[in-house]
């Protein structure tokens, strides 16, 4: 294997790699083999390799097995990427509107801005002209009434004693349109075990003033509709 020039009659120069080739069983030029046998500088290397060879014969680990074929790994990788993307899409989707307020009595009421279905928090201001949807699922058979109650006692009754079964979704027909009222105002939802007429409901609502929030409890759900400045407004 050696390509080093050497004079006639001189053994070709040999190095460790020539020795390694010989020990690996490579076919070598007879002249090179003779040179290796006469190379004292390689004797320590030969001993070192012999020692390692003995260790290798006793302790070498098994020949590694290749992994799955490339096409299989590519397919697996693509599948993993797709699964990851699907999981991300699932988690990044806007959450379904959660019940924002839960009255004692375990009736959940959903109050949702209709544009974009964004849930409104209890203290989040609403804007004049904004439209809200109201829905709930009573735990027990109930008669549902929905009204807005203003500080001065004026009442707008939107639904009167609508019978709703347990676990059945009640939805306020149409939309709740907020006007330009500037004083305090509350949305009140009654879920009662018996139907009330308009006058009875209004009387019940007047009992809630001046602070309807304090009366929240079984069968009565309230939230103050805090007005805020419209975006870009003064």
């Amino acid at each position, binding site marked *: 294997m050696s390509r080093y020039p050497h004079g006639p009659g001189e053994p070709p120069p040999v190095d460790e790699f020539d020795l390694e080739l010989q020990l*690996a069983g490579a076919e070598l030029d007879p002249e090179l083999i003779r040179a290796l046998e006469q190379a004292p500088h390689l004797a320590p290397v030969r001993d070192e390799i012999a020692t390692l060879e003995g260790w290798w014969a006793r302790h070498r680990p098994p020949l*590694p097995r290749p992994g799955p074929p490339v096409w299989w790994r590519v397919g697996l990788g693509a599948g993993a990427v797709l699964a990851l993307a699907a999981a991300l899409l699932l988690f990044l989707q806007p959450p379904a509107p959660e019940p924002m307020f839960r009255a004692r009595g375990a009736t959940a009421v959903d109050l949702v801005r209709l544009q974009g279905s964004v849930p409104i928090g209890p203290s989040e201001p609403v804007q004049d002209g904004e439209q809200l949807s109201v829905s709930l699922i009573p735990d027990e058979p109930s008669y549902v009434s929905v009204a807005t109650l203003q500080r001065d006692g004026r009442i707008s009754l939107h639904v009167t004693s609508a019978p709703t079964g347990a676990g059945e979704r009640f939805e306020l027909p149409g939309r709740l349109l907020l006007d330009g009222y500037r004083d305090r105002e509350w949305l009140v939802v009654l879920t009662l075990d018996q139907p009330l007429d308009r006058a009875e409901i209004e009387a019940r609502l007047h009992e809630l003033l001046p602070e309807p929030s304090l009366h929240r409890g079984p069968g009565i759900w309230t939230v103050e509709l805090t007005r805020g400045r419209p975006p870009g407004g003064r």
Partner: protein
Amino acid sequence: MPSRRSELGRLYAETGHLVLRRCLQILQNSEEAMDAVQWTFMRAIETSFELRSRGEAMVWLYRTASRRCLWMMRNTSHRSRIVDRHRDELAGRPIPATEESLMRRELVARALEGMGDDAAQVVLMTYIWGYTNQRAAQLAGISVRTVGRARATFEARLRALAAPEEAQG
């Protein structure tokens, strides 16, 4: 006719210790060296290189193993530790006016930084394995001139890095 895997198995059994020795010389850690050997033979299985002769197989194995060792040195951020193990060998090389500087592993590590794979491989083969330029060229599959340039670059980097240190000393 023996299968390819059985042929490689025989090659592994008969030459693995030679590859291991070379990996040990670079990595100076038996576990890491064994990993490099296993990886090298794994590549032999995967890439289905032709086993035309033992000589060619050894060249391929050494080339692949040295590249793997180089990758391990670079990738595992313990290059300076590895170079530190070799500072005596490196210091023993006749690089004018830089022998003392070679004792400083930081300099060697910095000198290797930014060198291409071929050039860094040549540094391993010549300074750590002790091969001549011709042999390194044969194993790395590059020209002797390229080996010479790579060594010159390495040595120039060492000198440049050593100069400020010598000035301070």
